[in-house]
């Protein structure tokens, strides 16, 4: 159910930016999801179809860009991907680690089609 609240926030954010850009139909949303943000994208897509109905973003395509979690060792400088069995540095074993990527949960951009005579009802 966690994805429902995220999808609602995503919709509000997209509609808001669509309006600010002068209105029109939102055709596509480019969403960036980091591995550590614990969001299941097919679940977001499921809610999206339901809650976008009747809005300027109805039926818009969701394009997900997934960012794998990347950790960096502050001792030996090595960079490695997250694995479930070992979090400590894979090369020197240090636990002094920074998370370099994988935290993201953001709306990067929207594709907007300006209102025309036919599509005028799409704006809100």
């Amino acid at each position: 159910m966690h994805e429902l609240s995220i999808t609602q926030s995503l919709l509000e954010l997209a509609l808001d930016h669509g309006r600010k850009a002068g209105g029109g139909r939102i055709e596509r949303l480019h969403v960036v999801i980091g591995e550590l943000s614990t969001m299941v994208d097919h679940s977001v897509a499921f809610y999206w179809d339901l809650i976008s109905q009747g809005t300027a973003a109805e039926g818009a395509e969701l394009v997900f860009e997934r960012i794998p979690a990347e950790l960096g060792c502050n001792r030996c400088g090595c960079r490695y991907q997250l694995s479930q069995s070992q979090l400590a540095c894979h090369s020197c074993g240090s636990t002094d680690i920074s998370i370099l990527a994988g935290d993201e949960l953001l709306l990067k951009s929207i594709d907007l089609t300006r209102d025309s005579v036919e599509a005028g009802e799409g704006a809100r």
Partner: protein
Amino acid sequence: MTERVKVVERILDASERLADENRRRLDQAGVVAINLMASPGAGKTSLIEQTLDALRGNIRIAVVDGDIATSLDAERAAAAGATAVQINTGGQCHLDSAMMQQALDQLALDEIDLLIIENVGNLICPAAFKLGSHYSVLIASVPEGDDKPYKYPGMYRGVDALILNKTDLLPYVPFDLNYFRRGVEVLNPGLTFLPLSCQTGEGLPDWLRWLGGCVPELAS
């Protein structure tokens, strides 16, 4: 003609702004709020009962209970002497800043020193939703197993203190404390670690001491 409009905004920004507003309300009223998170059965309600018992008469405590449907936990907190507000999330797996706002509306904040928020039992979602609390505390428990930091890194990263409950079961359950703590150390270096047992009371004074450092009324 389709045009790409740049946004680059965090999806939960609006909900986090509301959390900031909750925080301002708490600060204005001089309330310290602690968000207690754990998987179901780790001992959130038991720890709250023990805490209420130990601090009765010292400070004024209220409890906000997030639950999917029942009010059993709020009843337990009320029975232990706290003002309790139940928030039924209606199936949603976490409390969010809007529900927290509703809970704050139901409380006389000026008459409270410490607000304990019992989040919905879940190790995934509550980590992503800020409420406006001052401190986040995670309760792990021995029977859950020592691999939880590795499986739920998001939860372990964002907390200010980690309790390991049910330490009385350590002799009976395979739980490698070093493996557990090593995972925690990577995710949250230097995290306050409070092993305890709500059953035997062992370790509870350390938790109360930590709490004392958070709540000015307890420090004096």
